[in-house]
């Protein structure tokens, strides 16, 4: 029995030591070699989930880089903000997705979802340094360990991309996505405020952290509600922002587009909708 337990424990320790050593080493190398400086020309960083991913074409917004990613909880937006702001002092504005669903428990479901973490964490892991890593492991200890092999693989991919001089949008941590489908008709409608169950879960703490980060760094935070099909209550968004994020500006574009053919689906604009939205946002930012 003693021999069995000793060998089993030794094997488990050896295995985890091997994995964690490889993981930490590769994360450290990828982090050290990754260029967080977005360049002197970049003064606007766009973050958020699939809404900003689809709606904001950074090629049409001068001096902007879009690092939104589908189903990004605010935790990862905060991680990206912290890592890139520290290395890119030219960033003066962060445009952050802020839609009705972002104030619901859906945010936490993204943060804790096994499926979402399986897809995202491998690409984001190298960004998690020190306190950010501690935060993530506290929130999702299981996800970090069960994805360890995938993180190692992703880190090797990152190192390859770094060696090839790939742009920041090619690392799986965010980009603009151009959708080419057209919705034929209005398919989604929220008429009543009661349709959305608002709650403040774990993830909204990171929205606040992002706000305070911007405040400390004297960076303007613009909360953007990108165009949606149908009508949506934005009062809760305004109220939450004014109560908790008073210095942030709220740019409400939920009703900016009326034509269903500018949407790929109820929550996501297609490339034609993105063109109009991006030009409008660029114009708005210029005036500010």
């Amino acid at each position, binding site marked *: *029995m003693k021999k069995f337990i000793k060998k089993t424990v030794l094997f488990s320790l050896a*295995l985890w030591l091997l994995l964690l050593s490889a993981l930490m080493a590769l994360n450290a190398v990828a982090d050290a070699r990754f260029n967080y400086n977005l360049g002197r020309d970049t003064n606007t960083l766009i973050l958020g989930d699939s809404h900003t991913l689809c709606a904001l074409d950074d090629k049409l917004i001068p001096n902007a880089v879009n690092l939104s990613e589908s189903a990004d909880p605010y935790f990862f937006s905060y991680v990206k903000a912290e890592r890139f702001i520290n290395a890119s002092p030219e960033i003066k504005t962060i445009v952050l997705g802020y839609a009705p669903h972002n104030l619901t428990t859906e945010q936490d479901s993204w943060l804790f979802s096994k499926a979402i973490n399986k897809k995202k964490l491998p690409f984001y892991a190298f960004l998690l340094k020190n306190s950010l890593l501690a935060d993530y492991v506290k929130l999702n200890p299981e996800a970090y360990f069960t994805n360890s092999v995938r993180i190692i693989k992703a880190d090797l991919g990152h190192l390859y991309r770094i060696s090839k001089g790939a742009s920041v949008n090619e690392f799986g941590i965010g980009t603009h996505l151009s959708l080419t489908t057209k919705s034929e008709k209005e398919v989604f409608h929220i008429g009543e405020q009661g349709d959305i169950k608002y709650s403040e879960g774990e993830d909204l703490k990171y929205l606040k952290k992002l706000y305070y980060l911007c405040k400390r760094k004297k960076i303007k935070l613009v909360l953007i509600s990108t165009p949606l099909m149908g009508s949506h209550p934005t009062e809760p968004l305004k109220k939450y922002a004014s109560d908790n994020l008073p210095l942030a500006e709220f740019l409400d574009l939920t009703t900016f587009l009326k034509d269903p053919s500018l949407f790929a689906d109820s929550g996501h604009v297609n490339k034609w909708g993105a063109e109009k939205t991006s030009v409008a946002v660029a114009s708005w930012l210029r005036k500010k």
Partner: protein
Amino acid sequence: MLFNSTTYLIFLPVVFILYWFAFNKNYKQQNIMLMMASYIFYGWWDWRFVFLLAFSTFLDYWSGLKIAENENGRRRKFWLILSVGINLGFLGVFKYYNFFASSFAELLAGFGLQPHMATINVILPVGISFYTFHGLSYVFDIYNRRIPAEKNIVDYSLFVSYFPLLVAGPIERATHLLPQVQRPRIFDYGKAVDGLRQILWGLFKKVVIADQCAAFVNPVFNNYETYDGSTLAIAAVLFAFQIYGDFSGYSDIALGTSRLFGIELLRNFRYPYFSRDIAEFWRRWHISLSSWFKDYLYIPLGGSRGGNWMRIRNTFIIFLVSGFWHGANWTFIFWGFLNALFIMPSIILKTNRNNLEIVAGDRLIPSLKEAIQILMTFLLSVFCWIFFRANSMEAAFGIIGRIFMGVSSEKHSVPSLVLSVMIIAMLIMEWLGRQEDFPLRHWRLLKHSYVRFALYIAMFILILYFSGEDEQFIYFQF
């Protein structure tokens, strides 16, 4: 609690430590501890299921005692019928009521009637088919005087609820498991290591093979009208590997887990895809269920006595019932029917007991004849699996039509190279280790322990790489 979850990764060592260190004064204490752990395991799914399990356990325990204490044939029969009736009644309500209601409604609609059949909104308790059959085998064996009734409620409860086999088998027999429960278990290093190897192999089949096949198969089968014939054919083949990896993987984890506690369970799979004919396939696939139907249905119906017509009739009955056991859908029944049809020639020609030995013996390469036989048997099983997996009869025939007509479409898909390599690797390992209970047992013959350790680590890394979403085992729905 799934076997491939982090929760089980914590549960198992805790139970192991308690079993061998805290409750090791005598086996009766261990039985109590294991029984409680089993109920916790089951309750983890849904605490309400525990009451059903407890009721079923107590019913069969009590019926067993009553059957045993009565010499009067009519009284014995009464208690047997009571136990069988109530057990199958629960199974019927939870599993089959909606099927019968909707089928009956469809039948009446065919005559122009529009009945309003109430359907019940009820969750199917996990594992109900398995532990029901478990308990039934016990009362049948007592009725047939094969075993005495178990007087100790804890021992009997453990027999029914033993967590490694509770939710997806193997369907144990009282003659095999109860004696092990009723005597002290001694820790055996070799068996425990074998247990860990078998768990590792089971996880590999489930996580690396079955779950990755599922990722390809599910969208194809669920949207078959949009895929071309070749993609559907590939999906059918992959489903064969998915269900094998899933179910035999589960069985391996169950058997391996049980070995850690010094208890041997019945082997459930013996490399069925190396079978040379359908009869051999059914001697190697889900062995515990096939043998259950043979002992408690086929033989009481007359078995092979009474000529060819009796054999044909009884064979059809057990395959149809087996199909029905799998689920409340005509596709399962038709799957059973097809298997009966394919096995008929060997039943009629009395060749169903050929091929009893391990294919190719000690040879590395099968003969051409054996290879063709294996391939043909595999393809027949794939054809049957189409019905097993399809969502409806219409879908099944639609898929088969598209495959055989060579329908082309915009949507064409192929499995990843990695998955293909993993399946081939699994087949090679199983072929090389086919003399053993499970292929990794072969690795104990490797001279250097560091080579073995490196291979174990490599397998574990593969499992970790492909894991992540805790896909449910297919047979949990039965």
